[in-house]
């Protein structure tokens, strides 16, 4: 506990739009955001208490009660489950003397579940006080708790077995491993910082946009919007102040490539933001970074300082008068939906991450109502190379509608999980042989919001025109229980991550989890299976991508793996409800009349 609450708030000029920063600082400084603290914040910022509380209560990493001197957030993703999470969880619980979702009686250790933390190639993994502890085993969990009881700080708990590349940088010192398994022609090709900035300094912004447009480069976050067009729209939007956001929220379960890019090539990312800033006419950039990657903070801040020193950022980028651009880092606080660009903007403004109605689109009215471009980490990196090498160089790679390369995150049942930069046009089969996966039951392409496909479709092509993906590829081996180990986990995930604003999303994510549990328990009826198709149609009418895709795990497995459901929900039970348990239904009566 260092600074006082007023001091923290003053550091952000008592600006309510900086509420996220204020809350993050206080949460990390004091371990919780108590009712008293919320009152203080509301008073000093002169905003209603409920407005502070709506932000506090929205994000997973904010809490009203203390979560222990050591707070363990154990990843609860599908791949973590594959890798033996349950045993690690039990080991933590037994050693700490409390169950997940609570704090030990001596208040030393808090154990909590968390959604995918971007370490799918090194699961089970946990965050403990900002630091990542990958590849956990029950034995390691017990040793960690012993260390906590012995009063070791998190650095001591971590040890020095640092990961490869910049993970071992003195400013990172992380156990995380990059596992870059394949370097492609764009993102991981040789890079000399700053060259693109000097090149565009002799071009007009329109010329820069023309190069990007000619490359037909599309957004790499998953939606695939043409980058040149997005910039053009933002450039044409009236306004003196515009913003470039780099979306580093990377919350899609199974994806971790942005973490690796930010670790190895942070200058490339920031350089891409500066190129975007020049093209659009924006002087301010914001890297919206998920809190799970907070361990990179000092390193990234240092990188920004270096770039200012080198003239790659600041008032006179590349020595060109009028080329002003700088970047700040905005952290999230645990919310998947904030990866949606308008929710991300809301979050950066200090609010709950509720997607906005569109139009207006962010390019017209975004952050603080100003024209805003939101681009994915990888999108911005590719732009630097496109500017240097030209559109034709880029369009020579890939397929008809998908040019360039794609960085994908491969995890699950294979011998070589990690990051692969491939040219678009790879088939799933190509990929499976490259990552050494055999006995594959299914592949989850594009994370839970994508689709789950079976061997019949492994000749399909990774490309916007066929299997589009933001980069998450989860391989599901034949030994896995598709419904219990995969689909149910995804259903829980979407239920938890829905912002709750649209009725269909809020209600049907919850209801579908309940039905799935009944299916998994063999207590569902055929009519309940058949209802899902209609539910998916209802979900199509939600506001954002989360709501529109949240039933994809169920819908795509029902379509591609009907036999799995047939086994759990056999035909023919007549009018009888399988789920009806007579003994349980009359238990109260039995007890009362005994």
């Amino acid at each position: 506990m260092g600074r006082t609450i007023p001091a923290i708030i003053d550091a952000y000029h008592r600006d309510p739009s900086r509420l996220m920063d204020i809350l993050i600082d206080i949460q990390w400084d004091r371990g919780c955001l108590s009712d008293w603290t919320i009152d203080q914040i509301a008073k000093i910022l002169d905003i209603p208490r409920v407005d502070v509380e709506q932000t506090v209560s929205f994000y997973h990493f904010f809490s009203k009660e203390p979560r222990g001197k050591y707070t363990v957030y154990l990843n609860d993703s599908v791949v973590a489950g594959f890798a033996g999470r349950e045993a690690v969880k039990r080991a933590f619980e037994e050693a700490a003397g409390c169950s997940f979702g609570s704090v030990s009686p001596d208040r030393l250790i808090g154990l909590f579940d968390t959604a995918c933390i971007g370490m799918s190639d090194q699961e089970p993994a946990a965050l403990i006080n900002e630091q990542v502890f990958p590849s956990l085993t029950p034995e390691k969990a017990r040793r960690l708790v012993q260390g906590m009881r012995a009063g070791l700080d998190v650095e001591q708990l971590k040890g020095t077995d640092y990961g490869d590349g910049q993970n071992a940088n003195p400013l990172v010192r992380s156990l995380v491993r990059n596992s870059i398994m394949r370097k492609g022609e764009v993102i991981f090709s040789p890079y000399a910082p700053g060259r693109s900035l000097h090149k565009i300094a002799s071009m007009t912004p329109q010329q820069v946009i023309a190069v990007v447009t000619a490359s037909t480069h599309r957004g790499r976050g998953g939606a695939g919007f043409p980058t040149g067009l997005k910039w053009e729209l933002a450039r044409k939007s009236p306004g003196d102040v515009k913003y470039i956001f780099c979306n580093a929220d990377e919350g899609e379960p199974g994806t971790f490539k942005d973490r690796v890019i930010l670790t190895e090539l942070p200058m490339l990312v920031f350089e891409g933001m500066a190129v975007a800033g020049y093209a659009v006419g924006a002087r301010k950039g914001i890297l919206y970074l998920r809190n799970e990657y907070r361990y990179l903070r000092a390193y990234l801040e240092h990188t920004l300082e270096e770039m200012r020193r080198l003239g790659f950022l600041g008032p006179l980028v590349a020595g060109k008068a009028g080329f002003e651009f700088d970047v700040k880092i905005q952290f999230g606080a645990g919310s998947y939906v904030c990866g949606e660009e308008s929710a991300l903007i809301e979050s950066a403004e200090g609010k709950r991450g509720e997607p906005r109605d569109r139009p207006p689109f962010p390019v017209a009215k975004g952050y603080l109502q100003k024209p805003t471009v939101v681009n994915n980490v990888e999108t911005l990196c590719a732009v630097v190379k496109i500017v240097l090498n030209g559109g034709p160089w880029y369009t020579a790679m890939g397929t008809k509608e998908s040019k360039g390369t794609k960085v994908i995150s491969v995890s699950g049942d294979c011998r070589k999980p990690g990051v692969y930069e491939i040219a678009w046009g790879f088939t799933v089969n190509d990929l499976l042989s490259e990552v050494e996966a055999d006995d594959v039951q299914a592949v989850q392409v594009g994370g839970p919001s994508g689709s789950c496909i079976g061997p019949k479709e492994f000749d399909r092509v990774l490309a916007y025109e066929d299997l589009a993906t933001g980069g998450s590829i989860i391989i599901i081996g034949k030994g896995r229980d598709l419904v219990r180990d995969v689909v149910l986990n995804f259903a829980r995930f979407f239920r938890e991550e829905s912002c709750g604003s649209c009725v269909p999303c809020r209600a049907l994510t919850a209801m579908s989890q309940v039905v799935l549990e009944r299916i998994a328990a063999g207590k569902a009826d055929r009519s309940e299976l058949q209802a899902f198709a209609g539910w998916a149609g209802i979900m199509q009418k939600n506001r954002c991508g989360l709501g529109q895709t949240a039933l994809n795990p169920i819908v795509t497995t029902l379509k591609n793996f009907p036999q799995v459901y047939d086994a759990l929900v056999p035909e023919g039970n007549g009018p009888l409800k399988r789920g009806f348990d007579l003994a349980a239904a009359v238990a109260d009566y039995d007890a009362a009349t005994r």
Partner: protein
Amino acid sequence: MPKIVAFRIDGKPCQAAAGSQLIAAATENGVYIPTLCNYPGIPPKGSCRICTVRINGRLATACTSRVMAEMEVQAITPELEEFRASVVEILFAEGNHLCPSCEKSGSCERQALGYRYHMTPPHFAYAFPERGVEAWHPKILKDHNRCILCKRCIRGIRDEHGKTFFAFRRRADRLVINIDPETSRDVSDELVRQATEMCPVGAILRKEKGFDVPIGKRRFDRRPIGSDITT
């Protein structure tokens, strides 16, 4: 003067100011597009999704969409009406709606839409959530069982400084409306009246008051919701 433009809803020729709110323009042109979260005079939010239409084929909520010249709107189609009926049912199953004992019965828009869509027992399993009734406020009774989280109170009720009384708390299906103890402390009777009137269901009620309009003479007791609009 805003430019008046021509457009069509389900083939019917309509006219409205370019850029005006589509759902309001539809009303002016005698087309009723059902909604639960939209309310005249407050910023739209598009959260109930009931007013979803197709504009030139694309799905959009009529409350957040603007009128453009020559736009083709599909509003009352089997697909969309079935969707609306489902959302009304979902809202019923998601909360605890016990109409016979509710003060708002007969003036409740959600109940009225249930009748409009001839709702029978929902096809969606009742969630039976455990939700409370908040009665600490001197003037307002907040019954979370009935709340459909439409945000009308959040968007529409402000004090003279523009401060809100209501906000969301939490997310997903744990979402609730929170009442600010400070800003709402000296809330005027008029604002409370507005809040209860704005609430489409019986989730915000005035304490120590009720049944001013007897059952049988309420808004939707004799005429279905929307029948005052459709020409």
